[in-house]
Each structure stands twice: as C-alpha cells, then as structure tokens.
C-alpha cells in the first residue's frame, strides 16, 4: 500500500519520475501502456494550450477574469485518468485538466469563463459538479454524493478537489470527518500549489504538510509529487480502488505549483520571487513527461510542436464560437430558478421585457 509507505507521518513524498523524466522506481510504475501515457500527455498539452489561449484572450479584453492553470496539469490529468466512467468529479475551480479528461468540452469551459451560466450546463453523461467558488464548500457535496453511492449500493467513487488555502476552511475538516464517519467512497485531492492568492502555504497552516490533516480524521493519506503524472495516477488509482472496495476515503496532497497568477486580477510578483518561480519551471510536469515519452521512442519534438499548434488553433476556434454566441439570453436569467417560474418572477420578467420594448 502506497499510503503505508508514504503516509502522512512518514514525511516522504511519493514520486515515480524525477524532474528530467527519468524513472526513479521502476517497480512502482503503474501498469499502463506507453500509448495510454501518451494519451494522458496529450491531454496535458491540450489543457496547457487551452489555458494559454484563455490567458491571451483575457489580455486582449475578450475573456473576463480567468484562473490560470499552468503547472498543475499532472495533478489534474493524472488523478482524473485513474477514474472510471461512472465516477464523479467534484471540482473547485482550477482543474481544467481534470475537466477535459472527464469529457467536458472546451466550449463549456470557455463559456463559463466568458461569463455565461450555460458553461456549467454539462452534458448529462458527464458526472461532474459545477465550479464552486466558495472555497472548500464543494467537499461537503462530494461526501454527500459518495454517501449516496453507499446508500444506493452502487460502486461509483467520487473524486473531489480543493486548494491549499481551502484546507483552512471549516468545511474541509467537516467533510473529512463526515467521510471518515460514514466510510464514504471519496478521494480528496488537495492541489497544493503553494499560494492562496498571495498567502503562502507556510502562512496558511503551521502543520508541516497538508496531508497530515488526514490523521486527525482517521483516514489514509499520501503526499504526492503533483507534477509527476505517473505518481498522481498511481496514488489516485490506489485510493479509488480502496474506496470501491468499501474501505472508505483517502486524502491526497498533490505537491505542485501555480506558475501563473491566482486569477488574471492579481500580480504574483508582489508576493513571490522570480527565482522561486524559475525553480518550479524546472519541475514542469509537461516537460518531464515529454522527455519520458521521447526517451521511450513514442513521441518526438516535431510531433509535439505540431500538436501544440493544432490545439492552439482548436482553442481559438472554440473561443470564436463562444464569442459569437455567448451572450446570456434574458429569459435564462429567470427561467432556471425553479422548475416552473412562480408568478412574481414571471411578472418581473414581463415588466422588464415591456420596458425594453418601450426604450427600443
């Protein structure tokens, strides 16, 4: 069991691949084909392209506030790759790689950040909850979804994400406690990207690691190199299998780094040093996976450059579509509050429509 070897109190970080893409522990490499790793890598690239494009468009004033994702692709794609079709994804707001892995189309993602609620109207076969802005509040929902699976006798597992800052919120502790008490089949993944806006991980808690919070809840936990796709996959896979066997929740701390800003509204140079960012650029999850795949002879620089170009074009194309049709329809503001619109709301809607007709 990885959680025994790398448990919260072992003070060791689980890693399979080093920063150069070399395998440190061949016996721990998960049983997956090179083709499968390549698929995951492509999802990481797609995530990064979509992220870069969103950022670029935001700077052009075409996209609104956006939460950049770059640097955290392995933590997201690696964990999502360990999920089965019927499993549930419960996001915070910075899990682009996980969303795309689970089949959320980029058009929805962009529509959300473009400022239209229809971006959260996922296809019915995608078992994913919407973005949850109130920090850590989504973890309660994740536990509830997982408890329901238990109650209904179904074997689906729920995977939920939170950031390092979120571990300071009461909801986080409450969710872990419930999950333990009810033996809920849920995997909590902390994307510890080292900053909650400007507040560093060290100022967030005196605890040496975030994963040690699992100990108090009486559940297993593991500290993982969040920039190591293989390690993230292996740790999540083990946790999901444990949950599916009826052995309850796991807390995973993915140790990673947000290379960009918290959102496009803040300036990270105000609260962290460039040298620190540079050391983390060397640990780039995409770079190391690329080196691994090229070393295996299943990928090349040329293919890489070509695919990035394709993804970039695709992202721009998707955004153009969103830009052309992404305005919120007036009736949408009113019609989704209840199954049937109550009379007072109907009246407010009609009065406003009448006003618009009068001024036009």
């Amino acid at each position, binding site marked *: 069991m990885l959680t025994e070897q790398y448990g919260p109190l072992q003070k060791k970080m689980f890693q399979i691949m080093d920063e150069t893409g070399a395998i440190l522990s061949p016996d721990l490499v998960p049983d997956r084909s090179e083709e499968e790793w390549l698929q995951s890598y492509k999802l990481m690239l797609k995530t990064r392209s979509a992220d870069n494009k969103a950022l670029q468009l935001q700077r052009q004033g075409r996209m*609104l*506030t956006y939460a950049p994702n770059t640097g955290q692709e392995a933590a997201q794609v690696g964990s999502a790759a360990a999920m089965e079709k019927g499993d549930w994804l419960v996001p915070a707001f910075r899990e682009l790689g996980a969303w795309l892995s689970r089949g959320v189309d980029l058009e929805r993602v962009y529509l959300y950040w*473009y*400022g*239209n*609620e229809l971006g959260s109207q996922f296809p019915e076969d995608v078992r994913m909850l919407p*973005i949850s*802005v*109130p*920090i850590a509040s989504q973890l309660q929902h994740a536990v509830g979804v997982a408890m329901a699976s238990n109650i209904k006798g179904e074997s689906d597992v729920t995977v939920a994400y939170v950031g390092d*800052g*979120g571990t*300071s*919120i*009461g*909801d986080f502790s409450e969710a872990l406690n419930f999950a333990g008490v009810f033996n809920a089949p849920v995997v909590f993944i902390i994307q510890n990207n080292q900053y*909650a*806006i*400007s*507040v560093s991980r060290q*100022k*967030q*808690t005196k605890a040496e690691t975030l994963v040690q919070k699992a100990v108090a809840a009486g559940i297993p936990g593991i500290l993982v190199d969040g920039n190591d796709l293989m390690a993230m996959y292996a740790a999540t896979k083990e946790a999901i299998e444990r949950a599916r066997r009826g052995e309850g929740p796991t807390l995973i701390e993915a140790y990673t780094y947000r290379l960009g800003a918290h959102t496009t*509204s*803040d300036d990270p140079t*105000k*609260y962290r040093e460039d040298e620190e960012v540079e050391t983390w650029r060397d640990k780039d999850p995409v770079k190391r996976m690329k080196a691994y795949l090229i070393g295996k002879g299943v990928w090349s620089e040329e293919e890489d450059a070509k695919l990035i170009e394709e993804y970039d074009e695709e992202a721009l194309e998707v955004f153009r579509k969103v830009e052309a049709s*992404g*305005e*919120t329809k*007036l009736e*949408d*503001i*009113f019609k989704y*509050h209840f199954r049937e619109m109550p009379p*007072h*709301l109907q009246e*407010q*809607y009609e009065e*406003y429509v009448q*006003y618009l007709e*009068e*001024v036009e």
Partner: protein
Amino acid sequence: MAVMNLISTINHTLDVELERDDSVVVFGEDVGLEGGVFRATVGLQKKYGEKRVFDTPLAESAIVGTAVGMAINGLRPVAEIQFSGFIYPAYNQIISHVARMRNRTRGRLHLPMVIRMPHGGGIKALEHHSESLDTLLGHIPGLKVVTPSTPYDAKGLLLSAIRDDDPVIFLEPSKIYRAFKQEVPEEDYTIPIGKAKVLKEGTDVTVVTWGAYVHEALKADKLLTEEGIQAEIIDLRTISPIDRDTIIESVQKTGRFVVIHEAAKSFGPGAELIALVNEGAFLHLEAPPTRLAGFDVTIPIPRGEHHYFMDAQRMAAGIKKVVHY
C-alpha cells in the same frame, strides 16, 4: 486636502486610525503582504508591522470569530472580508455573536469592531463577487450597516465606524472604488452613522438610494430635470439604523417616494423603507411608494448582469411612472 478615489481613501483612513489608536488592528485574507486584492491596505503592514496588519489563513468564520475575541479583549479590530459574497461562512459568527454580545451579557461585554468588505455588483466578476447584502445584514438586530457613496463620506463614516463601541458592517461599493476622485481633507473628521444625506433638493418625488447606485440616480435626475421633474435625491448612507426623519420629512414635502436598490426585491430594504413612509407620511402620498430593485434571481454572471443592474435610463423610467401616476 488631497484628491483621492474611494479605495485610496479607505487606505488613508485606516492609516489615520492605526496611527492615532494603538488598539486598532487590521486583518483578513491577503490584507498584509499584498495589501488586499483591491489594494485597500497597501503599505499598512510595512508601516505598522505584522502584529497590527496581517494576513489570515483562508477562513472567513475565523476572521470574524477572532475579531469578536479581540474586541472583547481590548482591541478595535477592523476585519476585511475579501468580497461580500464570501461572508456566508462568517454569517454564523455575525448573527450568533457579533450582533448579540452586548445584549447577551446585558452590557458586560461589547464589540467595538468593524467588518469591511467590497460590496455590490456591476464589475463583471465571477459568481459570488457581486452580492448585495443589504437585506441579509440589515435585518439582523444589533448591527449597524453603513455604505458610503463618495470618498469624502467613506473617510468620515469609516472613522465613526472604527470609533463606535458597537459592531459596524462597512460595505464598500466596489464598482466605484476607482470610478472618480474627490477632495478629502487630511484632518480628522467623522460623519455620524444613521444620518442620510440630501444630495439634491426637489419637490416632485423623493428618491432614496445608496452605494454605487447613488451615481446612477444622479444621472437619472438629470434626465428627469430635462423633462421638468424635480426629484429630491437622498443618499441613505446608513442602511441600518435608517434615518427615518430625513426620509419622512422629504416625502411629506414631495408626496411621492421611490427607493432604488441592488438587492433582490422581495423582503428587501425597499420594503422596509416603504413601510416607514406609510407609517410617517401616509396622508401626504399622491402615488404608491415604489421599489426599483433587483429581480428575485441570483445575480447573473457577467454576460447577463447588465439586465440585473439598473442604469440611469431605467431608473428615470421607473421614477417617471410614479410622478405621472
């Protein structure tokens, strides 16, 4: 006299009070090192040290809850909630303790504390960043709820709030943080909490609003003036307790009343104000007192928010209906 916008006035005012009173402490998420996501506290940690101006972990309930403890133990905490829409985890502390401590202990304990936050919408932000809490906070017995609409008022009201021996919620309209500048005296002055301000006198209709909407209402007033309607425009400034006298006096003169607010219509402050008008000026009324308020919907994210928030034209149209009733 310095020329300042609303956000730099908040910063200046906190500076004034940190300097004057050693018991004042300022804290919240990103408040210290970064100086706040809107830059309200920029430079203050450097000047007053980490003991008096500091970052907290991400936990609104603990920010407000620890402020309660600090206030009990001799400090004057000024806590920042990063956005009004993030206040809900702290709502338990606010309603269960902040608002009740003096009454619960029959005066043995009181809470000289301020909770300040960016408030309201119209800034094309993500969900939960445009909330209006007028109703949710105004309804709680034991709280004072203040909202300035100009830099000058912000300084006077914030100094009153910090010096008040009871808890004050200070709502800062984020839409106008940087919208315009105004001359703000360097010296110390206060504006009393609970006093509305008549911005423009008129005889045909009383219009009451507050926060960012004050500026739209003044634009609406220009449109009305072009049509010969003389509106009296009042900035409420304090949502709770309401300045009854100023409003009743005005309605007794004009005979018509319109209240405009961002918060959803049902059960909102407009209903409260209309009740006051009915109680105090019923026989003077020439038209039904009217609310122009937010729809009873969740505030839309950016691509729909222009339907939710009113512009001057829409305000003017609503006011005209009351005048021509």
